[in-house]
């Protein structure tokens, strides 16, 4: 029973993290394309900023994935 709850917790962590990252990077990528279409000469600058913000958006879900993996394989397995 406890193990089942831990698996559900890991699944929730990964799923909700993926949800947030998907929304965030979707908006970010859409705006990047809009900006690039409007002013193609700014693409190099926009791409740098895009990657910085993507790293910021991506960081927390990625941490959640790591912790979920830890819970599912190390905590439950032990």
């Amino acid at each position, binding site marked *: 029973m406890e193990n089942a709850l831990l698996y559900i917790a890991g699944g929730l962590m990964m799923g909700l993290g993926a949800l947030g990252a998907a929304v965030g990077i979707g908006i970010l990528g859409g705006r990047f394309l809009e900006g690039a279409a409007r002013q193609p000469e700014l693409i190099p600058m926009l791409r740098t900023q895009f*990657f*910085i913000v*993507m*790293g*910021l958006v991506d*960081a*927390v879900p*990625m*941490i959640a*994935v*790591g*912790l979920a*993996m*830890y819970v599912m*394989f*190390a*905590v*439950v*397995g*032990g």
Partner: protein
Amino acid sequence: MAAAPETSAEYIKHHLTNLTFGQHPDGHWGFAHSMQEAAEMGFWAINVDSMLFSVGLGVLFLWGFRKAARTATAGVPGGWQNFVEWVVEFIDESVRGSFSGKNPLVGPLALTIFIWIFLMNLMDLIPVDWLPAVAGVAGVGHLKVVSSTDPNITFGLSLSVFVLVLYYSFKMKGVGGFFGELAFQPFPKFLAPVNLVLEGVTLIAKPVSLSLRLFGNMYAGEMIFILIALMYGGGLALGAFGGLLQLGWAIFHILIITLQAFIFMTLTIVYLDMACQEHH
């Protein structure tokens, strides 16, 4: 390996344990043999492997870049000189883009942070069992190769940046100016305590988020590498699939390690820029 791990959970925990040197509760000094023993050593224990790899990579970085600077020629440059020039130009451009004032410290600081964190993260791409196996033959039970998966190291980096931020805040704005920035924004002056709490949290959140972001990304990446390495014990088909997965994740991870090093550097520059601005 010294103590052959048996279950997958033991294997994972073995890989996530630092080689810790400190004082045992009974008084003698020595290495810890498990996570629990390391926790009992308290504050003055030191993670020998993190220190070894971080300082070693720092020395490697200084030696390599110094060599390029000493042997630099105006004629046809070698490959290493080309690379170093490209890196220095790239960092210089980033600093000029984000840092508005004039400060001789920020450029070298940004270069050091970027290359050092990149090198520490790069150790993640070495297959997870190689170096611990070598250490195991030499009689060392635990070895964590990636220094940036140790929160002590990332917090050390971010707290050093935080000290610099405080130093430049006091130097450029004065005590009154810095306090004013904390207390008289974003609401009017009569709400100073509220402002102080809000701005104080913002200030403290800088080093915490800076270090936890790097640590969390590297920890998660390392975790996934360890899980992939577990597949090699599952027969030929699963092992081959694991090899494919490891290659794929390693290629994706090249992006992550560079990006995280770059983000750490960029945010350092931005924080220092905010600390050095005199108006408000």
